[in-house]
């Protein structure tokens, strides 16, 4: 993104004392932006205070988007703990796999740490797109919020339907929400922006996403496992719903692996979008099979691994004494995959790290869950997983997309 040679500052005479010259003063804006765009958000908090010029360069939508392109993502996990009739908000965490050293020690993989992100405890996480969270207020139905934890901004996004997707439209480069409403004949889907702009109808379909989540999609396509009205399972051939943001259209595709027994449905199959790939995992008896979508056009899935879940449970202290059998396996969730290491959440037992090569497992401490007063491991827990990039993207830049509430609502 060169601004052209004409933006270069004129060469200064070398007769001046070079040591006293402000180096940055001689660089054009595009180069200063190139330098600052490489900094992480915490460093940008310092950089924005250095001088007026740096503030002017950083506090723009253009810089925020450029910075997002370079930023690496982390996996955030939100455990939704349910003890009839209440949902508990334990907190929102991101998985820290540790800094990548230039010369990694072979074989040594330190366990990941789960770090708390401060977010309002009256909200549940549905999903994340770039640096923005989409949250649902727990006490009020259909009250949604977009929140950027870096800039502290939050904006309510009232919606009549259930939001099931939050994505960046690949052509318009604007953020969009996909939602559905249940009708007597099925589910009515529509897409709209983050404000009062006209919404676009997508159509009526027989199925809705099985989980209450809002994925952001992989390469412009969003994916969900689906159910019909009253939770009826669709046939295997229609078990995965895919939404194309470009075409504003759905299609229904079969899940990988063998066909399921009609009585069981696909309740043991789960889909997760992670790090730009789509994974499906299924738990059958004591094995977890994981597939990854290699090619969308041909709908080609490749088996990534089969994990034997018959672990020596005596080596791992159980949090819930009532869990004595392997019954709970079917609720196990795949949380993260990185460099041949899997992170698995086992309700009732905790978080485990599984190495694909050595087939070893380690229990990963999760301080908040382990020590929370509500004895979270006794509860039915489902974890919402999303990809997050810390970003300065201010909701003010997206203001044209919003109801104009004014700045007082932005904190």
């Amino acid at each position, binding site marked *: 993104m060169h601004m052209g040679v004409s933006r270069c500052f004129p060469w200064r005479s070398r007769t001046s004392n070079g040591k006293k010259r*402000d*180096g940055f003063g001689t660089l054009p804006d595009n*180069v200063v932006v190139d*330098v600052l765009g490489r900094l992480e958000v915490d460093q940008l908090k310092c950089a924005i*205070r250095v001088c007026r010029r740096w503030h002017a360069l950083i506090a723009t939508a253009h810089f925020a988007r450029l910075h997002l392109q370079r930023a690496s993502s982390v996996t955030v996990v939100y455990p939704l703990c349910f003890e009839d009739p209440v949902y508990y908000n334990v907190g929102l965490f991101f998985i820290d796999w540790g800094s990548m050293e230039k010369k990694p020690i072979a074989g040594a993989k330190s366990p990941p740490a789960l770090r708390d992100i401060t977010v309002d405890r009256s909200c549940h996480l549905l999903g994340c797109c770039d640096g923005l969270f989409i949250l649902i207020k727990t006490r009020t139905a259909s009250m949604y919020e977009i929140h950027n934890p870096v*800039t502290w901004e939050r904006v309510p996004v009232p919606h009549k339907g259930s939001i099931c997707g939050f994505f960046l439209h690949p052509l318009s480069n604007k953020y969009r929400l996909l939602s559905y409403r249940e009708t007597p004949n099925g589910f009515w889907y529509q897409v709209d922006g983050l404000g009062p702009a006209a919404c676009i109808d997508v159509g009526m379909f027989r199925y809705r996403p099985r989980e209450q989540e809002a994925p952001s999609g992989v390469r412009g396509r969003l994916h969900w496992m689906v159910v019909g009205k009253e939770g009826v399972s669709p046939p295997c051939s229609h078990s995965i719903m895919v939404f194309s943001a470009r075409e504003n259209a759905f299609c229904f595709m079969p899940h990988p692996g063998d066909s399921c027994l009609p009585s069981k449905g696909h309740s043991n199959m789960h889909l997760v979008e992670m790090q730009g790939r789509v994974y499906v995992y299924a738990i059958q008896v004591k094995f977890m099979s994981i597939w990854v979508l290699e090619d969308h056009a041909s709908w080609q899935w490749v088996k990534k691994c089969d994990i034997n879940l018959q672990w020596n449970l005596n080596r791992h202290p159980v949090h819930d004494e009532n869990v004595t059998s392997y019954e709970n396996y079917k609720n196990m969730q795949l949380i993260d995959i990185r460099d041949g290491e899997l992170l698995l959440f086992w309700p009732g037992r905790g978080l485990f790290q599984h190495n694909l090569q050595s087939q070893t497992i380690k229990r990963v401490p999760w301080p908040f869950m382990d020590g929370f007063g509500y004895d979270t491991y006794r509860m039915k827990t489902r974890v919402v997983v999303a990809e997050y990039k810390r970003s300065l993207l201010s909701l003010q830049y997206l203001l044209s997309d919003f109801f104009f509430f004014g700045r007082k609502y932005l904190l």
Partner: protein
Amino acid sequence: MSSPPSASASSSPPPCPKKMITLRSSDGATFEIEETAALQSKTLENMIHENCASTLIPVPNITGEVLARVVEFCSKHAEAGVDDESLGAWDEEFVAVDHTTLFDYIRAANFLEIPTLLDLGCQTVADMIKGKTPDEIKKTFKITTACTPEEEEEVRGENQWAFE
């Protein structure tokens, strides 16, 4: 400049003589650079393709001292058979210079549109900014255009999150 490899006994054609381009710095010094190395610079590449690079290309914005080093960088990066690790080490040594020189390299890379050198220079400066407080950054880079108290307040008002 390494000599061209000798032709093998098989039917490979004899290597062509390498085309040289001459650059002239702002203070009149001239430097020869192989065409393959010069192609690292988009500015020079455009000139070569438009046949402007007949004999001499003036580079008025860059002094001889800096241009010599830039030519060295492009030549090194155009060399065949250099593995990534040793190139990385060479790059690290290349940017182990004082701030003034480093900014000279960045300006030259921007003017001549050399993506590899620009990337290296900008990353080096970014690494220097990491871990420093705003005051330390001002001191390190001798940034004198500090905010007035009123301007500081305005920045604080708009970006409270940066001051937590």
